[in-house]
């Protein structure tokens, strides 16, 4: 029987088995590294938290600017050019500080020219009247004056009779009406006759016109002089009765408007170089003498928990003080927000300073409080992810299960909810990537 030597064959298979074992181990190392890397990339790490029982503490911290409780408008009735604005918006001024400077040069020139024109008209009217008087002579003047007096008397009588007629027509007495009507007709006839006498004399009519023109010229001259003098008085230029054209003599036509009291310039409606409109106040200066106001803008959510009469801590000028909310009004500047107002004494600081409000309010006790980081929402509503622990052959597996909740109340960090969770549930809070219901997750070490 032939003996077969199997030793080399066995040795080969042994070598192959040894190499295969090494390759197998190397492959397992590679797969371990790969699967760990894949897990790091695909499985989210979440922070697990448990719901707690307790109360919410509403904390609102916001800043605002102090302002005076009243504003003083600086009104300038003239429409005049503004030369310079010395107190810009937001600046603080003391009593007597310059606010802005008005330039009356153009206005003065216009008024003085009007005065000169009126003066010239007056001279001409005076001359024409003198000539008309000369043409008429002394007798003529007396005659004309008599006629004028007659005309005035007739006109007066006519007015009286017409008035009586109007009264009589309101009554039922036809006789009285007839008498009044006749009287009025008679007075009309007298008036017409007197007027005819004046109109019929050309020289007399000319004299009368000249007299009236002279009166008008005098009135205009007086008005121009008054306006010009008023302007000089209003400006810093010295007022004079001699009607000196001050602008021509290089006298100042500037008027500096001064602050009536200390405060902050809240609003400036004038611009250097532009003409001030008299329809609105040139400036508004805060008046701190009646105290200060602190306006703090808060969100709608924050405002819901706050109420007038509640106290809040305020820090102004480095000092903390408690103050009461005086009003809560919707903000006009940012719709959806509210302005919480505080009334403060003037001694606390100055208008324009910043103030910080610290408002704290504790809510009722809730059974289920969760951090906001665990609260999620989509188009269906608010929900949380419960971490479901699955005990598999490979150890504990964590998967996310959605539980819809209703938010009862929330503050800046936590929310009180009710729904399908209990205090024993573990909820997924922060995660290092976006997660969905059914996702496998890892729990963070913290």
């Amino acid at each position, binding site marked *: 029987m032939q003996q077969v030597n199997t030793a080399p064959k*066995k040795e080969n*298979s*042994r070598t*192959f*088995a*040894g190499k*295969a*074992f090494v390759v*197998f*181990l190397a492959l*397992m190392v590679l*797969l*371990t590294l*790969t*699967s*760990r890397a*894949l*897990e790091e990339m695909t499985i989210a790490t979440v922070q697990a938290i448990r719901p707690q029982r307790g109360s919410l503490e509403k904390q609102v911290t916001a800043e605002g600017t102090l302002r005076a409780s009243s504003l003083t408008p600086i009104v300038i009735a003239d429409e005049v050019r503004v030369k310079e604005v010395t107190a810009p918006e937001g600046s603080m001024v003391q009593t007597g500080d310059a606010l802005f400077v008005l330039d009356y040069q153009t206005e003065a020139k216009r008024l003085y020219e009007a005065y000169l024109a009126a003066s010239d008209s007056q001279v001409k009217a005076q001359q024409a009247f003198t000539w008309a008087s000369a043409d008429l002579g002394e007798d003529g003047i007396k005659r004309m004056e008599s006629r004028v007096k007659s005309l005035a008397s007739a006109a007066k009588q006519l007015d009286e009779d017409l008035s009586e007629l109007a009264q009589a027509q309101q009554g039922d007495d036809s006789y009285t009406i007839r008498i009044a009507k006749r009287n009025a007709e008679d007075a009309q006839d007298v008036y017409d006759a007197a007027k005819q006498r004046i109109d019929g004399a050309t020289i007399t009519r000319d004299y009368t016109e000249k007299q009236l023109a002279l009166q008008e010229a005098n009135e205009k001259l007086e008005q121009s002089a008054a306006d010009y003098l008023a302007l000089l008085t209003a400006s810093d230029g010295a007022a004079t009765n001699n009607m000196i054209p001050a602008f021509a003599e290089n006298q100042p036509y500037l008027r500096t408007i001064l602050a009536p009291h200390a405060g902050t310039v809240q609003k400036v409606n004038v611009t250097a170089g532009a003409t001030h409109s008299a329809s609105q106040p040139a400036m508004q200066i805060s008046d701190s003498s009646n105290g200060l106001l602190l306006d703090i803008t808060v969100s709608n959510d924050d405002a819901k928990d706050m109420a007038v009469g509640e106290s809040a801590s305020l820090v102004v000028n480095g000092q903390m003080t408690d103050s009461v909310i005086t009003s809560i009004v919707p903000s006009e500047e940012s719709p959806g927000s509210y302005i919480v107002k505080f009334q403060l004494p003037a001694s606390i600081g100055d208008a324009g300073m910043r103030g910080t409000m610290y408002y704290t309010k504790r809510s009722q006790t809730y059974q289920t409080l969760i951090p906001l980081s665990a609260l999620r929402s989509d188009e269906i509503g608010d929900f949380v992810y419960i971490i479901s622990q699955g005990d*598999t*052959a*490979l*150890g*504990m597996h964590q998967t996310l299960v959605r539980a819809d909740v209703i938010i009862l109340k929330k503050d800046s960090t936590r929310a009180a909810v009710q729904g399908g969770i209990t205090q024993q549930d573990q909820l997924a809070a922060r995660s290092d990537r976006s997660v969905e219901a059914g996702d496998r997750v890892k729990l963070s070490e913290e």
Partner: protein
Amino acid sequence: MKKIHYWLRAACLWLLATVVLMPLVMTFAASLMQKSELLEHIGSVMTGGSGMANAPLLPRLTTLVQYVSLLMDTPKFLDMFWNLMGMVLPIVAGQVVIGTLAAWGFARYRFPFRNGLFLLYIALMMLPFQVTLVPNFLVLDRLGLMDTPWAVILPGIFSTFAVFLLRQFLIAIPESLIEAARIDGAGELRIFFSIGLALGHPGIASLCILSFLDYWNLIEQPMTFISSQDKWPLSLYLTRIGESNLEVAMAASVIALIAPLLMFFYFESYLVKGIQMSGMKE
């Protein structure tokens, strides 16, 4: 007549081999099946139903999804594999070192109570794990080794089986050979390393494979002494096959089979010799 006997014997052996190999083939085939198909075949058994399990040798639709899932998506499985490696390899190495020295002492030196002590070793070897569970637990707890891999490794290293097996190999070395070495001026260490280890290496090899196979299937020790799941070895995972992870467990079984199979092929000849020697009488 001789030919008939030959074929009859061959048929019997093939039948036996088929019966022995069938679970292996079934496991491999099941690891390639889809979950639905797998549940269809053996689901009733897994769920405790009243049906019969059947095991087709070929899947209707082959899939490697469970392998990918296990090897790419489940680092915990691979962690368990390395946990097991991290226990088995130190145990085997420790047994070789400790067992060789102790066995050499029992085999070559005469000292009081030597036979009694060795009898005690054999007696300890015979005791099932459950008997020594409580003392082991107390000692490990006192040493602060509970829930650490050392709770499995240290008792494994000092296993009495290694001493027993290696003693059988080392005692077979002729005394005359050792005497000759002594006459030639070799010291005790030289004799141990140059004669003991050199001639006893088949025993060491067979210890390696037997010990590797034994500890690769560790269940009771880690289950008792290690409570953290992240320190569990792969052998514990295989005991927890359930309906929900049936297909993955089949794939895991196949993967878990590879290492001992390769080790077996590597140490095959020594294994046979070791089993023969461990059955020898002194």
